């Protein structure tokens, strides 16, 4: 099985490396800027401007959270192979799975750190404008964290065999499709062709159902959120993430580092 010490060693070093990346801070800066811009934008509406502010801020968190997840995720293995740091690391008594899980854990921690900063900023602009923040928001943030971890796992899978550029395209594609599959399924089911309907259903089953991680509207409107709304997606996400990582390990295990 995986050794916690080794995984932790890789993970903590990954965090250490990732937080040094300038691109990360540029993205974070954009996110914060967009949230502040939300204040201006929401003032264009003479009603419900707190809601609009929170909508914009949530969207900023989602967009830049995913951008960060994809950016750090696809560079995951590539950088290590490219700089050949992987040679010395894998020559140690460390399985490739441990390496992969360690990298993944480190990146997820990094992204959650970024998310925490964005949440703090969200609270800041909300307090500034008197917009209410409740338990729904906490649920939405937690689920966003789950979605981002899943995206990192998708990026990990792709980057276990592909170049960063292609991986980022693939990952972005999965992310978009993951938000689309419910609608695709519904469209498919409404179509006359049984085949199309079936395809829609299977697409929805196979791709991650990312809409289940989206509680933006519920949070902003203070709609009731049940415990199952939170823990079910989290369980689903954790299981799906594990599947992705296992697949990535299978590929990574067979890979030549040349």
């Amino acid at each position, binding site marked *: 099985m995986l050794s916690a010490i080794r995984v932790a060693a890789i993970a903590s070093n990954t965090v250490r490396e990732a937080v040094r990346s300038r691109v990360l801070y540029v993205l974070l800066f954009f996110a914060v800027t967009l949230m502040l811009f939300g204040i201006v934008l929401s003032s264009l509406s003479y009603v419900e401007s707190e809601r609009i502010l929170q*909508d914009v801020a949530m969207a900023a968190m989602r967009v830049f959270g995913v951008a960060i997840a994809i950016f750090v995720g696809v560079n995951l293995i590539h950088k290590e192979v490219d700089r050949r740091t992987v040679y010395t690391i894998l020559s140690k008594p460390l399985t490739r799975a441990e390496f992969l899980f360690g990298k993944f854990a480190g990146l997820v921690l990094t992204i959650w750190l970024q998310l925490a900063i964005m949440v703090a900023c969200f609270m800041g602009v909300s307090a500034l404008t008197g917009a209410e923040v409740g338990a729904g928001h906490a649920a939405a943030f937690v689920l966003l964290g789950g979605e981002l971890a899943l995206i990192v796992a998708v990026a990990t899978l792709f980057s276990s065999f592909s170049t960063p550029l292609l991986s980022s395209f693939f990952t972005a594609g999965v992310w978009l499709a993951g*938000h689309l599959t419910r609608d695709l399924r519904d469209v498919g089911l409404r179509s006359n062709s049984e085949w199309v309907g079936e395809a829609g259903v299977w697409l929805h089953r196979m791709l991650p159902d990312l809409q289940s991680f989206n509680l933006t509207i519920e949070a902003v409107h203070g709609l009731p959120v049940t415990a199952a709304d939170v823990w079910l997606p989290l369980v689903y996400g954790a299981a799906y993430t594990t599947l992705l990582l296992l697949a990535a390990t299978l590929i990574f295990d067979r890979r030549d580092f040349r």
Partner: protein
Amino acid sequence: MKPGSANRVVVRGALLALALAITIGAFGALDATPKIDRGEIFVPPAEQLRFASFGFDAVLSDYYWLMALQLVGDASKPVEGGSVAKLIDVVTALDPWVGHPYRFAAVWLTDSLENVHAANRLLARGVAYSPLDWRNRHYLGFNHFFYMGENAKAAGILEGALHLPGAPRYLAPLVAKLRTEREGLETARGFLASLVETSADPRTRAEYLKALDEIDTERRARLLDQARSIYKKRHGRDIERVEDLSTGQRPVLRKLPPAHPHFSSFAWEIDPETGDIVSGFYGARYRPYEHIRDKERRQRWLGDAAHVSRES
């Protein structure tokens, strides 16, 4: 300074100035008029937008909401109801839990029967998603009564808002009034009377009791209407004053009922516009108030609609 470096400065400076001039000139030539002002706002169908929102429904909804605000914010142009309807449809399809946009639609979509219908569809969506908000029901009921003359339906919708938090006191009397037409005065009276019993707030009760007074007065006015028709049969002419009913030869009534249950100083009058017998206290009969122009518009709209439906 090296020979030639002065030259280089001049060339670079000239190039910079040229590039800057072209940039500014070309920028000015770009047609950057907002799409709204060009009258070509493109609002994708709500269905498609929701499909391709990728989890950004809320913020997209806000975007189209701000666009709708711009559309009506320009005082120099008449508001084109169709665009508002499309925009608010998108806004509320993307985020059906919004509040104000529904009422916004109700306010701005009053220029044609078609738009009122559109507003009603939107308001119905608002009622479905925010069933505890009295305001969407209020606007919906109002539209049914005011623009479409469907008083019974309006009453049904408004009745659903009566007990919602924040609902105004005048709603129940209004419902009673609207119900009268189809269900009769006694039903309306019973409805209000039961509300009086169940409402705890003294000011609300007072409001309802006032409405009951008006119903009692209407009852008497209807009695006078009957007396008036007997008078016509008997004398072959209409009354000139309401007192004619109880005075002169062969009066129909021995005595006129009071024109208000509590205030005896008010008398019955004949409304010069409608010819109706009205209480001096109320100045009008017990029915939803409607300005004559509103009535005319409604009849025109509904006539048109009937005409169109007959054609098709």
